[in-house]
């Protein structure tokens, strides 16, 4: 990229930035009051926490597609990270780190469980829980306790998609209520919990996959 082009780009960027900033001042109050609407419907949403209610009920459809996005990233990575036999020998992990990891992981799983359960009425939920699970898996891998994933077997694939498929099944089943993802208020809590559990596991595994499929192919310790 030529020096002039760089300069022009930066100049334009600065110009745009100033307009953007200028545009943000003295805006009137939003015309539509959605927080009010959310609060009003919260009791029928099946969860006590507004954000969770939006994520899994009011805009649960977004979340469904978002899980699809995660799976897509995974698919893309699988497509390019197929085992080409190139393996780079790495030193075995230090015993201390391994011991530490082995100790930490159970607590992390516990934390994940807590985050999942608390998500209904406080900040938390499937994603947070799933990420903690993933962190645990990554830790094990870094400590060389767990080898990188080369070619995923049926079980792993099942783990990856189960959360998504459960969500999908629920969404489809609920069409009997008249609309996609229309929870009957009585059942909303239970169904959402079911979805959350599935998602936690799948998201945990997918997130781990994003890492364990990318790490160097290792000669297992």
């Amino acid at each position, binding site marked *: *990229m030529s020096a002039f082009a*760089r300069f022009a*780009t*930066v100049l334009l*960027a*600065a110009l*745009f*930035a100033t307009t*953007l*900033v200028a545009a*943000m*001042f003295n*805006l009137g*109050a*939003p015309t539509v009051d*959605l*927080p009010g609407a*959310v609060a009003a419907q919260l009791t029928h949403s099946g969860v006590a926490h*507004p*954000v969770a*209610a*939006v*994520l899994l009920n009011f*805009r649960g459809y*977004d*979340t469904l597609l*978002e899980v699809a*996005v*995660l799976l*897509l*990233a995974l698919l*893309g*990575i699988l497509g*390019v*990270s197929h085992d*080409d036999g*190139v393996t780079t020998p790495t030193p075995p992990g230090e015993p201390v780190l391994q011991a530490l990891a082995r100790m930490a992981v159970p607590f992390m799983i516990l934390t994940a469980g807590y985050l999942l359960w608390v998500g209904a009425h406080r900040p938390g939920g499937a*994603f947070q829980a799933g990420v903690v699970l993933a962190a645990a898996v990554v830790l094990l891998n870094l400590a060389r306790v767990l080898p990188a994933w080369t070619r995923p077997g049926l079980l792993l694939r099942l783990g990856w998609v189960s959360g998504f498929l459960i969500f999908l099944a629920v969404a489809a089943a609920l069409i009997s209520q008249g609309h996609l993802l229309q929870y009957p208020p009585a059942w909303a809590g239970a169904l959402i919990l079911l979805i959350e559990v599935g998602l936690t596991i799948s998201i945990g595994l997918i*997130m781990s996959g*994003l890492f364990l*499929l*990318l790490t160097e192919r290792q000669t297992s310790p």
Partner: protein
Amino acid sequence: MSPGLIYALAGALLFVLGATGVIVLANLLRKILAFNLLGSGAFLVLVGLAQRDGGTDPLPQAMVLTGIVVAVAATALALALLRRLHRLTGQTRLPDEKEHG
């Protein structure tokens, strides 16, 4: 000036910074980082601007959570491609394709 608005303004700047980075920087890893900057900027504007008058609004928060997950996924894919490219060609920047094949 409410904290929400400050977040929004910061977000705007981050966005522009990121966008510029993606365009100007040559190294792909930096491009990917710049993209994350850009994304975070957009998220900040989303939550900040919506809550500029102090009140909390769960909708943008939920949307940003969605957005973050999308960004994570995209970043992972981008990194995977970059690693693949490096493994195949030893390059960490994009070849300037000729205009015709």
